[in-house]
Protein backbone atom coordinates (compact mmCIF):
# COMPACT_ATOMS: atom_id res chain seq x y z
CA UNK A 1 0.00 0.00 0.00
CA UNK A 2 2.70 2.46 1.04
CA UNK A 3 4.88 1.23 -1.81
CA UNK A 4 2.21 1.99 -4.39
CA UNK A 5 0.60 5.15 -3.01
CA UNK A 6 3.03 6.92 -0.70
CA UNK A 7 6.39 5.72 -1.97
CA UNK A 8 8.97 8.17 -0.51
CA UNK A 9 11.56 7.59 -3.24
CA UNK A 10 9.01 8.26 -5.95
CA UNK A 11 7.73 11.33 -4.13
CA UNK A 12 11.30 12.66 -4.07
CA UNK A 13 11.94 11.77 -7.72
CA UNK A 14 8.68 13.16 -9.09
CA UNK A 15 8.56 16.23 -6.85
CA UNK A 16 10.14 18.69 -9.35
CA UNK A 17 7.79 17.54 -12.13
CA UNK A 18 4.69 17.75 -9.95
CA UNK A 19 5.75 21.08 -8.47
CA UNK A 20 6.15 22.57 -11.95
CA UNK A 21 2.58 21.38 -12.59
CA UNK A 22 1.31 23.04 -9.41
CA UNK A 23 2.92 26.30 -10.49
CA UNK A 24 1.28 26.05 -13.92
CA UNK A 25 -2.11 25.31 -12.33
CA UNK A 26 -1.77 28.49 -10.25
CA UNK A 27 -0.78 30.52 -13.33
CA UNK A 28 -3.57 28.99 -15.40
CA UNK A 29 -6.11 29.81 -12.67
CA UNK A 30 -4.81 33.38 -12.48
CA UNK A 31 -5.49 33.64 -16.21
CA UNK A 32 -8.85 31.87 -16.53
CA UNK A 33 -10.58 33.30 -13.44
CA UNK A 34 -10.26 36.94 -14.63
CA UNK A 35 -11.15 35.82 -18.17
CA UNK A 36 -14.32 34.12 -16.91
CA UNK A 37 -15.17 37.11 -14.73
CA UNK A 38 -14.73 39.39 -17.72
CA UNK A 39 -17.01 37.19 -19.83
CA UNK A 40 -19.53 37.11 -17.00
CA UNK A 41 -19.43 40.87 -16.54
CA UNK A 42 -20.10 41.42 -20.25
CA UNK A 43 -23.09 39.05 -20.08
CA UNK A 44 -24.44 40.62 -16.88
CA UNK A 45 -24.15 44.15 -18.25
CA UNK A 46 -25.86 43.11 -21.47
CA UNK A 47 -28.63 41.52 -19.42
CA UNK A 48 -29.32 44.82 -17.67
CA UNK A 49 -30.39 46.24 -21.02
CA UNK A 50 -34.18 46.24 -20.90
CA UNK A 51 -34.75 44.63 -24.24
CA UNK A 52 -36.62 41.32 -24.36
CA UNK A 53 -34.72 40.14 -27.46
CA UNK A 54 -31.36 40.70 -25.75
CA UNK A 55 -32.59 39.01 -22.56
CA UNK A 56 -33.87 35.95 -24.39
CA UNK A 57 -30.68 35.59 -26.40
CA UNK A 58 -28.61 35.84 -23.26
CA UNK A 59 -30.73 33.30 -21.41
CA UNK A 60 -30.35 30.86 -24.31
CA UNK A 61 -26.59 31.53 -24.37
CA UNK A 62 -26.24 30.87 -20.65
CA UNK A 63 -28.45 27.77 -20.76
CA UNK A 64 -26.47 26.45 -23.70
CA UNK A 65 -23.23 26.54 -21.73
CA UNK A 66 -24.94 25.18 -18.63
CA UNK A 67 -26.00 22.19 -20.75
CA UNK A 68 -22.71 21.74 -22.60
CA UNK A 69 -19.93 19.83 -20.79
CA UNK A 70 -16.77 21.98 -20.64
CA UNK A 71 -14.64 19.03 -21.71
CA UNK A 72 -16.69 18.64 -24.90
CA UNK A 73 -16.24 22.35 -25.61
CA UNK A 74 -12.52 22.01 -25.05
CA UNK A 75 -12.20 18.96 -27.34
CA UNK A 76 -14.32 20.71 -29.96
CA UNK A 77 -11.89 23.63 -29.99
CA UNK A 78 -8.77 21.52 -29.73
CA UNK A 79 -9.60 18.64 -32.09
CA UNK A 80 -12.40 20.11 -34.20
CA UNK A 81 -11.05 23.53 -35.20
CA UNK A 82 -7.92 22.17 -36.94
CA UNK A 83 -10.29 20.66 -39.53
CA UNK A 84 -11.43 24.21 -40.25
CA UNK A 85 -7.78 25.16 -40.75
CA UNK A 86 -7.47 26.82 -37.36
CA UNK A 87 -4.91 25.13 -35.16
CA UNK A 88 -4.79 26.57 -31.66
CA UNK A 89 -2.53 25.31 -28.90
CA UNK A 90 -3.97 23.49 -25.89
CA UNK A 91 -3.37 26.55 -23.76
CA UNK A 92 -5.29 28.93 -26.03
CA UNK A 93 -8.14 26.41 -26.30
CA UNK A 94 -8.39 26.21 -22.52
CA UNK A 95 -8.47 30.01 -22.32
CA UNK A 96 -11.28 30.29 -24.90
CA UNK A 97 -13.30 27.40 -23.45
CA UNK A 98 -13.11 28.90 -19.97
CA UNK A 99 -13.99 32.37 -21.21
CA UNK A 100 -17.17 30.90 -22.76
CA UNK A 101 -18.11 28.26 -20.19
CA UNK A 102 -17.25 29.87 -16.87
CA UNK A 103 -18.24 33.25 -18.30
CA UNK A 104 -21.79 31.94 -18.60
CA UNK A 105 -21.80 30.82 -14.97
CA UNK A 106 -20.24 34.04 -13.66
CA UNK A 107 -22.69 35.99 -15.83
CA UNK A 108 -25.67 34.25 -14.25
CA UNK A 109 -24.34 34.98 -10.76
CA UNK A 110 -23.54 38.63 -11.48
CA UNK A 111 -26.93 39.11 -13.11
CA UNK A 112 -28.63 37.81 -9.97
CA UNK A 113 -26.44 40.22 -7.98
CA UNK A 114 -27.40 43.19 -10.15
CA UNK A 115 -31.08 42.22 -9.90
CA UNK A 116 -30.76 42.16 -6.11
CA UNK A 117 -29.85 45.86 -5.98
CA UNK A 118 -33.08 47.87 -5.60
CA UNK A 119 -34.04 50.06 -8.56
CA UNK A 120 -34.12 53.06 -6.25
CA UNK A 121 -30.35 52.91 -6.05
CA UNK A 122 -29.98 53.39 -9.80
CA UNK A 123 -32.62 56.15 -9.84
CA UNK A 124 -30.90 57.97 -6.98
CA UNK A 125 -27.48 57.62 -8.64
CA UNK A 126 -28.82 58.84 -11.96
CA UNK A 127 -30.58 61.79 -10.35
CA UNK A 128 -27.27 62.99 -8.86
CA UNK A 129 -25.99 63.34 -12.41
CA UNK A 130 -24.05 60.08 -12.81
CA UNK A 131 -24.24 58.55 -16.27
CA UNK A 132 -25.74 55.06 -16.72
CA UNK A 133 -22.25 53.59 -16.89
CA UNK A 134 -21.03 55.48 -13.84
CA UNK A 135 -24.12 54.48 -11.85
CA UNK A 136 -23.47 50.85 -12.80
CA UNK A 137 -19.75 50.95 -12.01
CA UNK A 138 -19.78 52.95 -8.78
CA UNK A 139 -23.19 52.25 -7.25
CA UNK A 140 -24.78 49.04 -8.52
CA UNK A 141 -21.84 46.70 -9.14
CA UNK A 142 -20.11 47.13 -5.75
CA UNK A 143 -23.36 46.23 -3.97
CA UNK A 144 -24.18 43.48 -6.45
CA UNK A 145 -20.79 41.80 -5.98
CA UNK A 146 -21.13 41.96 -2.21
CA UNK A 147 -24.56 40.34 -2.33
CA UNK A 148 -23.37 37.35 -4.36
CA UNK A 149 -19.86 37.01 -2.95
CA UNK A 150 -20.35 33.42 -1.68
CA UNK A 151 -21.64 32.32 -5.10
CA UNK A 152 -18.75 34.04 -6.87
CA UNK A 153 -16.27 32.37 -4.55
CA UNK A 154 -17.94 28.99 -5.00
CA UNK A 155 -17.81 29.33 -8.78
CA UNK A 156 -14.18 30.37 -8.62
CA UNK A 157 -13.41 27.20 -6.68
CA UNK A 158 -15.09 25.20 -9.44
CA UNK A 159 -13.11 27.08 -12.07
CA UNK A 160 -9.79 26.30 -10.38
CA UNK A 161 -10.82 22.64 -10.16
CA UNK A 162 -11.80 22.68 -13.84
CA UNK A 163 -8.26 23.66 -14.84
CA UNK A 164 -7.50 19.92 -14.42
CA UNK A 165 -9.24 19.52 -17.79
CA UNK A 166 -6.18 21.15 -19.32
CA UNK A 167 -4.43 17.79 -18.86
CA UNK A 168 -6.59 16.33 -21.65
CA UNK A 169 -5.17 18.81 -24.20
CA UNK A 170 -1.58 18.50 -22.96
CA UNK A 171 -1.40 21.71 -20.93
CA UNK A 172 1.32 20.86 -18.38
CA UNK A 173 -0.74 21.64 -15.28
CA UNK A 174 -0.76 19.68 -12.03
CA UNK A 175 -2.76 16.63 -13.14
CA UNK A 176 -0.93 16.37 -16.48
CA UNK A 177 2.47 16.53 -14.84
CA UNK A 178 1.42 13.96 -12.23
CA UNK A 179 0.23 11.58 -14.94
CA UNK A 180 3.52 12.03 -16.80
CA UNK A 181 5.41 11.18 -13.62
CA UNK A 182 3.07 8.23 -13.05
CA UNK A 183 3.70 6.75 -16.48
CA UNK A 184 7.45 7.23 -16.04
CA UNK A 185 7.52 5.49 -12.68
CA UNK A 186 4.69 2.94 -13.13
CA UNK A 187 3.48 4.03 -9.74
CA UNK A 188 0.36 5.87 -8.52
CA UNK A 189 2.26 7.94 -5.95
CA UNK A 190 2.60 11.10 -8.12
CA UNK A 191 -1.18 11.21 -8.57
CA UNK A 192 -1.67 10.91 -4.82
CA UNK A 193 0.83 13.77 -4.40
CA UNK A 194 -1.09 15.88 -6.94
CA UNK A 195 -4.40 15.12 -5.22
CA UNK A 196 -2.87 16.13 -1.88
CA UNK A 197 -1.64 19.40 -3.39
CA UNK A 198 -5.09 20.15 -4.83
CA UNK A 199 -6.62 19.42 -1.44
CA UNK A 200 -4.14 21.59 0.48
CA UNK A 201 -4.61 24.42 -1.99
CA UNK A 202 -8.42 24.35 -2.08
CA UNK A 203 -9.46 23.07 1.34
CA UNK A 204 -9.27 26.51 3.01
CA UNK A 205 -11.63 27.84 0.34
CA UNK A 206 -14.05 24.94 0.90
CA UNK A 207 -14.06 25.57 4.67
CA UNK A 208 -14.67 29.29 4.17
CA UNK A 209 -17.50 28.59 1.72
CA UNK A 210 -19.10 26.11 4.06
CA UNK A 211 -19.23 28.81 6.74
CA UNK A 212 -20.52 31.49 4.38
CA UNK A 213 -23.26 29.22 3.03
CA UNK A 214 -24.42 28.15 6.49
CA UNK A 215 -24.51 31.76 7.60
CA UNK A 216 -26.46 32.79 4.51
CA UNK A 217 -29.07 30.08 5.12
CA UNK A 218 -29.32 30.77 8.83
CA UNK A 219 -29.90 34.44 8.06
CA UNK A 220 -33.19 33.80 6.28
Amino acid at each position, binding site marked *: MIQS*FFNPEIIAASWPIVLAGLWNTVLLSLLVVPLGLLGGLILALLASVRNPMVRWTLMAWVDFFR*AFPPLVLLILLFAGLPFAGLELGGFVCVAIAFFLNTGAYYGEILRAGIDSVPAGQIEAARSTGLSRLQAMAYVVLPQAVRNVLPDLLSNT*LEVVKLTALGSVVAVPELLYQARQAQSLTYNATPI*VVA*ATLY*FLMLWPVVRLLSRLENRA*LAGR
Partner: protein
Amino acid sequence: MLKYLPDILSGVVVTIELAVLVVVTGIAAGLVLALLRSLGIRPLNWLIIGVVDLFRSLPPLVVIVLIYFGLPSVDLSPSGFVSTWLSLALVLMAFSEEIFWAGITSVAKGQWEAARSTGLSFGQTLMHVVLPQAFRLTIPPLTNRTIAITKGTALGTVVAVTEILGQASSAMSNSYNPSPLMLGAAAYIVLFFPVVVAARWVETKFAWKR
Protein backbone atom coordinates in the same frame (compact mmCIF):
# COMPACT_ATOMS: atom_id res chain seq x y z
CA MET B 1 -21.69 11.39 -40.76
CA LEU B 2 -24.70 9.06 -40.75
CA LYS B 3 -22.33 6.12 -40.68
CA TYR B 4 -21.33 7.04 -37.15
CA LEU B 5 -24.84 7.74 -35.88
CA PRO B 6 -25.17 4.26 -34.28
CA ASP B 7 -21.86 4.79 -32.44
CA ILE B 8 -23.02 8.13 -31.07
CA LEU B 9 -26.39 6.64 -30.09
CA SER B 10 -24.71 3.83 -28.17
CA GLY B 11 -22.67 6.58 -26.50
CA VAL B 12 -25.89 8.35 -25.58
CA VAL B 13 -27.13 5.18 -23.90
CA VAL B 14 -23.91 4.83 -21.88
CA THR B 15 -24.04 8.52 -20.90
CA ILE B 16 -27.64 8.16 -19.72
CA GLU B 17 -26.85 4.98 -17.74
CA LEU B 18 -23.87 6.64 -16.12
CA ALA B 19 -25.79 9.85 -15.38
CA VAL B 20 -28.74 8.03 -13.79
CA LEU B 21 -26.44 5.86 -11.66
CA VAL B 22 -24.44 8.89 -10.51
CA VAL B 23 -27.50 10.97 -9.66
CA VAL B 24 -29.35 8.21 -7.78
CA THR B 25 -26.41 6.89 -5.76
CA GLY B 26 -24.76 10.28 -5.21
CA ILE B 27 -27.85 12.02 -3.89
CA ALA B 28 -28.93 9.01 -1.82
CA ALA B 29 -25.48 8.78 -0.22
CA GLY B 30 -25.47 12.54 0.41
CA LEU B 31 -28.87 12.34 2.10
CA VAL B 32 -27.74 9.42 4.28
CA LEU B 33 -24.63 11.34 5.36
CA ALA B 34 -26.68 14.46 6.17
CA LEU B 35 -29.13 12.39 8.25
CA LEU B 36 -26.26 10.67 10.07
CA ARG B 37 -24.78 14.10 10.74
CA SER B 38 -28.04 15.27 12.29
CA LEU B 39 -27.66 12.58 14.98
CA GLY B 40 -24.92 14.81 16.42
CA ILE B 41 -22.29 12.17 17.19
CA ARG B 42 -19.08 14.19 17.36
CA PRO B 43 -16.39 11.82 15.96
CA LEU B 44 -18.79 10.65 13.24
CA ASN B 45 -19.49 14.25 12.25
CA TRP B 46 -15.78 15.03 11.96
CA LEU B 47 -15.41 12.03 9.69
CA ILE B 48 -18.34 13.13 7.52
CA ILE B 49 -17.04 16.70 7.29
CA GLY B 50 -13.60 15.39 6.36
CA VAL B 51 -14.94 13.20 3.56
CA VAL B 52 -17.22 15.96 2.28
CA ASP B 53 -14.42 18.55 2.30
CA LEU B 54 -12.08 16.15 0.52
CA PHE B 55 -14.44 15.54 -2.39
CA ARG B 56 -15.40 19.19 -2.59
CA SER B 57 -11.75 20.22 -2.96
CA LEU B 58 -10.59 17.59 -5.45
CA PRO B 59 -11.30 18.09 -9.15
CA PRO B 60 -13.57 15.23 -10.34
CA LEU B 61 -11.06 14.31 -13.06
CA VAL B 62 -8.36 13.86 -10.41
CA VAL B 63 -10.64 11.50 -8.46
CA ILE B 64 -11.38 9.51 -11.62
CA VAL B 65 -7.69 9.20 -12.51
CA LEU B 66 -6.83 8.29 -8.93
CA ILE B 67 -9.39 5.47 -8.82
CA TYR B 68 -8.72 4.19 -12.34
CA PHE B 69 -4.92 4.26 -12.26
CA GLY B 70 -4.39 3.98 -8.51
CA LEU B 71 -6.60 1.10 -7.40
CA PRO B 72 -4.99 -1.52 -9.68
CA SER B 73 -1.92 -1.21 -7.43
CA VAL B 74 -3.95 -2.79 -4.63
CA ASP B 75 -5.28 -5.48 -6.98
CA LEU B 76 -8.60 -3.79 -7.59
CA SER B 77 -9.12 -2.98 -11.24
CA PRO B 78 -12.34 -1.05 -11.65
CA SER B 79 -13.38 -0.48 -15.27
CA GLY B 80 -13.46 3.05 -16.64
CA PHE B 81 -17.24 3.01 -16.28
CA VAL B 82 -17.11 1.99 -12.62
CA SER B 83 -14.30 4.48 -11.88
CA THR B 84 -16.26 7.34 -13.41
CA TRP B 85 -19.49 6.33 -11.69
CA LEU B 86 -17.79 5.96 -8.32
CA SER B 87 -15.88 9.25 -8.61
CA LEU B 88 -18.80 11.37 -9.74
CA ALA B 89 -21.12 9.74 -7.19
CA LEU B 90 -18.63 10.56 -4.40
CA VAL B 91 -18.37 14.16 -5.59
CA LEU B 92 -22.14 14.52 -5.86
CA MET B 93 -22.49 12.87 -2.44
CA ALA B 94 -20.19 15.51 -0.93
CA PHE B 95 -22.01 18.45 -2.50
CA SER B 96 -25.50 17.11 -1.79
CA GLU B 97 -24.62 16.30 1.83
CA GLU B 98 -23.54 19.90 2.28
CA ILE B 99 -26.73 21.18 0.66
CA PHE B 100 -29.03 18.82 2.63
CA TRP B 101 -27.22 19.68 5.85
CA ALA B 102 -27.61 23.40 5.20
CA GLY B 103 -31.30 22.72 4.57
CA ILE B 104 -31.72 20.76 7.79
CA THR B 105 -29.92 23.36 9.93
CA SER B 106 -31.97 26.13 8.36
CA VAL B 107 -35.14 24.72 9.91
CA ALA B 108 -35.57 26.66 13.12
CA LYS B 109 -34.85 24.86 16.38
CA GLY B 110 -38.32 25.73 17.65
CA GLN B 111 -39.75 23.46 14.95
CA TRP B 112 -37.86 20.50 16.39
CA GLU B 113 -38.87 21.33 19.94
CA ALA B 114 -42.50 21.88 19.02
CA ALA B 115 -42.67 18.62 17.07
CA ARG B 116 -40.98 16.63 19.82
CA SER B 117 -43.25 18.15 22.47
CA THR B 118 -46.32 16.92 20.60
CA GLY B 119 -44.99 13.40 21.13
CA LEU B 120 -43.35 12.75 17.74
CA SER B 121 -40.20 10.64 17.89
CA PHE B 122 -36.84 11.88 16.56
CA GLY B 123 -37.38 9.98 13.31
CA GLN B 124 -40.96 11.18 12.90
CA THR B 125 -39.90 14.79 13.50
CA LEU B 126 -37.22 14.44 10.87
CA MET B 127 -39.54 12.80 8.33
CA HIS B 128 -42.70 14.83 8.78
CA VAL B 129 -41.53 18.21 10.01
CA VAL B 130 -37.90 18.98 9.24
CA LEU B 131 -37.19 17.31 5.90
CA PRO B 132 -40.23 18.68 4.04
CA GLN B 133 -39.16 22.21 4.95
CA ALA B 134 -35.49 21.49 4.29
CA PHE B 135 -36.12 20.02 0.83
CA ARG B 136 -37.78 23.15 -0.41
CA LEU B 137 -34.67 25.14 0.36
CA THR B 138 -32.31 22.58 -1.12
CA ILE B 139 -33.97 22.13 -4.51
CA PRO B 140 -32.42 25.06 -6.43
CA PRO B 141 -28.78 24.52 -5.39
CA LEU B 142 -29.20 20.76 -5.69
CA THR B 143 -30.50 20.82 -9.28
CA ASN B 144 -27.69 23.18 -10.28
CA ARG B 145 -25.02 21.03 -8.73
CA THR B 146 -26.51 17.81 -10.05
CA ILE B 147 -26.51 19.10 -13.64
CA ALA B 148 -22.92 20.34 -13.33
CA ILE B 149 -21.72 17.00 -11.98
CA THR B 150 -23.78 14.90 -14.40
CA LYS B 151 -22.17 16.77 -17.30
CA GLY B 152 -18.94 15.39 -15.84
CA THR B 153 -19.82 11.99 -17.35
CA ALA B 154 -17.89 13.36 -20.38
CA LEU B 155 -14.78 13.01 -18.21
CA GLY B 156 -15.19 9.24 -18.53
CA THR B 157 -13.69 9.51 -21.99
CA VAL B 158 -10.28 10.02 -20.31
CA VAL B 159 -10.51 6.51 -18.84
CA ALA B 160 -11.89 4.95 -22.04
CA VAL B 161 -15.60 4.90 -21.20
CA THR B 162 -17.54 4.60 -24.46
CA GLU B 163 -19.91 7.47 -23.68
CA ILE B 164 -20.84 10.19 -26.18
CA LEU B 165 -17.56 12.09 -26.18
CA GLY B 166 -15.48 8.89 -26.27
CA GLN B 167 -17.47 7.51 -29.20
CA ALA B 168 -17.37 10.83 -31.03
CA SER B 169 -13.61 11.23 -30.57
CA SER B 170 -12.79 7.75 -31.82
CA ALA B 171 -15.19 8.12 -34.76
CA MET B 172 -13.46 11.39 -35.56
CA SER B 173 -10.01 9.83 -35.59
CA ASN B 174 -11.27 6.91 -37.69
CA SER B 175 -12.89 9.14 -40.29
CA TYR B 176 -10.47 12.09 -40.27
CA ASN B 177 -13.54 14.26 -40.13
CA PRO B 178 -14.99 16.38 -37.35
CA SER B 179 -18.64 15.56 -38.20
CA PRO B 180 -18.96 12.82 -35.53
CA LEU B 181 -17.72 15.32 -32.96
CA MET B 182 -20.37 17.81 -34.05
CA LEU B 183 -22.93 15.02 -33.82
CA GLY B 184 -21.72 14.20 -30.30
CA ALA B 185 -21.90 17.86 -29.31
CA ALA B 186 -25.46 18.01 -30.65
CA ALA B 187 -26.31 14.88 -28.65
CA TYR B 188 -25.18 16.60 -25.42
CA ILE B 189 -27.36 19.59 -26.21
CA VAL B 190 -30.37 17.39 -26.97
CA LEU B 191 -29.78 15.48 -23.74
CA PHE B 192 -28.98 18.29 -21.31
CA PHE B 193 -30.73 21.37 -22.66
CA PRO B 194 -34.20 20.17 -21.61
CA VAL B 195 -32.78 19.35 -18.17
CA VAL B 196 -31.38 22.86 -17.79
CA VAL B 197 -34.67 24.42 -18.88
CA ALA B 198 -36.57 22.15 -16.50
CA ALA B 199 -34.18 23.12 -13.72
CA ARG B 200 -34.87 26.79 -14.37
CA TRP B 201 -38.58 26.08 -14.06
CA VAL B 202 -38.12 24.09 -10.84
CA GLU B 203 -35.96 26.86 -9.40
CA THR B 204 -38.63 29.50 -9.91
CA LYS B 205 -41.34 27.16 -8.63
CA PHE B 206 -39.52 26.36 -5.41
CA ALA B 207 -38.05 29.81 -4.82
CA TRP B 208 -39.08 31.45 -1.58
CA LYS B 209 -41.38 34.36 -2.09
CA ARG B 210 -39.51 37.38 -0.80
